[in-house]
């Protein structure tokens, strides 16, 4: 990293917005995933102009750039795989405009997802995409990864709620795509940029749709004694055309860990639970809740509880949204997978995951968006044991391959990042890559933006890339 780049960035942003000491940089080499990569510099822009100037400097010095929000990502999308300068958007966190009449908000990328809802809920509105990290993750990160969440089953993922973007291209050019209202003539560039994982441009302003809160909501908790019964229930809810706002599944084993954390009254002896939420007009909610309950009972639910008030409902959701972290209680490390399957294949997929776990000697937890077919198997392992670590990787690879075999996809919401780029050939042909690469190069010709992501670096079908080195912790402990 050239010293003159540091000087120029210091004079551009002020020293308080530039980190260059190793002791600071090591705190930006991780995110929510198991990946690791250290940037050479970290900068905090406050305006779009700042971002543009930083990119011009990066071009001048030929250093890679990666954007980052809160660093809660699960595929290493916001890690500086190629070193270089990391742009942290956390200080670009102003809500620029609330247009409640037209149900739009214009925000900077560093605004925290849940803070949008907090700013508009007084008007009966909210921002629908609700990733589990929503109290920390930024909207910029959501846009980059096209983040989902439990309620995307009914309301769609981030892309369905973004109508316009301001972008900065690698050469520093500032461009706007989409519009606040309706759509603009031409290609759906917004649709292309959302979910491009920061490999095409950096997002500096986002216009999002706000959704009106439903008149009524019912949250059901169905308790099952067999995992098969729960997965058959989901398949039938889908097949019957009931469209819940969310339909989440948690296996019994994972549930115990959650219960230890939040004490929501989840049963400790169940095989699986379903958390199903229906929303809409009172009449529709009544009918749907009854239909869901009926399907649950048909598939031998031991018990179906309905949250009596907002507090009970919040508690149930708190359990679901904190599920991944709660597993930190069970083992020193865990690896959260993210695969998608057709919903009709749910029962067989869960059976297969279980037998893969058995084969490698792991307990594999399942907490996932069942209604979307978006699986999140969680492999718990102890990184101090190299064999366990190897097995965890092998089991994960096998599960993801199986998802693809069933007609599914590599990732439903966490992104490809540097975790799954070597698995991409499972789904895409050389011609597909060729076209994606041309689109990439049209915007990011020198791969200066977020290099080493999405595209496989090696030829042929590779591996899930998980940090090879086991985590080290203080010697005295």
């Amino acid at each position: 990293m050239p010293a003159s780049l540091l000087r120029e960035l210091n004079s551009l942003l002020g020293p308080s917005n530039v980190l260059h000491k190793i002791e600071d940089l090591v705190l930006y080499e991780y995110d929510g995933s198991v990946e690791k990569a250290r940037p050479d510099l970290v900068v905090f822009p406050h305006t779009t102009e700042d971002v543009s100037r930083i990119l011009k400097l990066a071009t001048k010095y030929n250093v890679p750039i990666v954007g980052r929000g809160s660093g809660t990502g699960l595929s290493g999308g916001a890690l500086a795989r190629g070193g270089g300068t990391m742009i942290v958007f956390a200080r670009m966190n102003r809500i620029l405009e609330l247009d409640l009449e037209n149900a739009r908000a214009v925000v900077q990328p560093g605004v925290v997802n849940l803070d949008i809802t907090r700013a508009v809920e007084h008007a009966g509105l909210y921002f629908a995409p609700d990733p589990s990290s929503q109290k920390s993750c930024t909207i910029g990160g959501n846009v980059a990864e096209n983040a989902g969440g439990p309620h995307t089953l009914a309301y769609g993922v981030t892309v369905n709620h973004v109508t316009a973007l301001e972008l900065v291209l690698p050469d520093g050019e500032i461009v706007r795509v989409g519009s606040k209202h309706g759509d603009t003539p031409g290609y759906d560039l917004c649709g292309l940029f959302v979910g491009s994982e920061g490999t095409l441009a950096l997002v500096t302003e986002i216009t999002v749709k706000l959704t009106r809160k439903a008149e009524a909501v019912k949250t059901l908790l169905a308790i099952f004694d067999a995992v098969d019964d729960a997965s058959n229930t989901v398949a039938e809810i889908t097949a019957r055309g009931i469209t819940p706002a969310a339909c989440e599944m948690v296996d019994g084993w994972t549930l115990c860990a959650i219960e230890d954390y939040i004490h929501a009254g989840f049963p400790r002896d169940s095989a699986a639970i379903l958390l199903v939420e229906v929303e809409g007009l009172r009449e529709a909610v009544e009918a749907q809740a009854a239909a869901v309950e009926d399907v649950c009972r048909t598939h031998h639910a031991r018990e179906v509880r309905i949250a009596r008030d907002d507090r009970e409902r919040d508690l149930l959701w708190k359990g679901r949204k904190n599920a991944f972290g709660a597993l930190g209680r069970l083992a020193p490390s865990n690896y959260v997978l993210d695969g998608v399957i057709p919903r009709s294949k749910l029962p067989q997929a869960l059976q297969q995951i279980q037998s893969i776990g058995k084969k490698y000697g792991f307990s594999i937890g399942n907490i996932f968006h069942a209604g979307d077919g978006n699986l999140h198997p969680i492999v718990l392992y102890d990184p101090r044991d190299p064999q366990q670590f190897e097995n965890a990787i092998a089991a994960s690879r096998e599960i993801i391959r199986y998802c693809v075999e069933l007609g599914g996809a590599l990732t439903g919401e966490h992104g490809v990042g540097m975790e799954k780029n070597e698995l991409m050939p499972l789904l895409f042909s050389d011609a597909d890559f060729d076209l994606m690469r041309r689109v990439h190069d049209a915007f990011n010709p020198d791969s200066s933006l977020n290099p080493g992501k999405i595209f496989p670096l090696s030829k042929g079908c590779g591996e899930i890339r998980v940090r090879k080195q086991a985590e080290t912790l203080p010697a005295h402990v």
Partner: protein
Amino acid sequence: MTATANLATRLESVLGAHRVVAAEPELREYAIDGMVPGAIVRPASAQEAAEVARFAITEKLAIVASGSRSKLDLGMPPARYDLALDMTGLHEIAHFDPGDLTLSVDAGMPLRQLARMLAEKGQFLPLAVPCCETSTVAGALASGIDSTLRKQYGTPRDFLIGAEFVDGKGALCKSGGRVVKNVTGYDLHKLLIGSLGTLALITRLNFRTFTLPQAHGGQVACFSNLEGASAYRDAIEKSGLPLANLETLSPEMVAQTAAVLRETSAEFAGRLDPAKWCVYASFEGNEAVVPRIARDLQKLANEAAAAGSEILDAASDAHLGGILREAFDWLRWASPAVALFRIALPQSNPGDLANLLRVAQDSSLRAALLVRAAGIVHFTLFVESENESALHALENAAARVFSLAGAGHGHATLLHAPSKLKSRVNVWGPNRADLGMMRHVKHSFDPRNIFAPGRFVGGI
């Protein structure tokens, strides 16, 4: 004729004679704004479509793909038009998993046929577009034309989950997949929506499907002026009532709709008052939801001091809804020459609509306004002949509409215009700042510019 004959012969050598047509009368059916292709090719598979693309690359030819050709008047005429690629030969269901509510269907599948097949399983695809009797699924998607179910189900961006297509290098490519949630790789398929065939030859589309609602209903409420209608509309939006469709019709639009209704001679229980502004709401749901919405709407209409309001039963609602869905189709033939604008505007400002009507008044043109859900306005200007003064009037009006839309933070395009007007007015409106990026996209998909050159925004 020799060049064309040669072209056909050379094509036949690639695909076989039965796939190629070069007879004059048939060629004319594929004309776009008077431009006639050199030959028609009817591929029967994605591979054959790819072969045509590769042939076009070697021979430096321009291809315009089409389905039922119901909306060839969209966009600008192509700069070159050598081959018409008729995609109706690709019409199979590749995959339908009713239990997963996902569907994979060939480009040329007619929407009507698809709807019948899905209905057998109680499902549907919310692409309620004009010319739905003939339209193909890829044609509807590539045209970018609005679906009247947009308010409830969104645009194809919200339910297209993957696509297969031939890119401008003649390679078979895909993006997305067959599952409802997927962030693997770039969402290139979203770019195909409304791309008017300028990026790739769509061969197959993957969708999520939806369950058919149990019951339907509608309401028509009349108001003596635009402000009243707009206020009612706002009240409905604020109420949060889930509607499938919500349209506001100007008196002229009401009159024309009523006329079409009469022609169809179907049972229609409602009354449309051609002297009034009308708000049409359509809704669906279960047997309890539909009457509840009807009740709430009637209450809102009373509070908004509607000049009249009535609830439509399912049949009447389907009838009126169908006619309005087809509005694009019949409006463009409603007078000897028509300029039909599509304008995206913020919903909250009725002043913008009044300004549009003023444009018509100033040019002494008859005009109809149809405000669709989500702020999409169809603004139609009628002239009685395609003479110079009429064209001149339309040209001036178009300039004003484009600038009005821009001033209102919206965007206007011409969905339909007399061919002669297209040589004076770019139907896509003034270029926007993102044109450079669009060119990047076009170039990466179609580096040799073989797909529908010149049809799209900014001459793409």
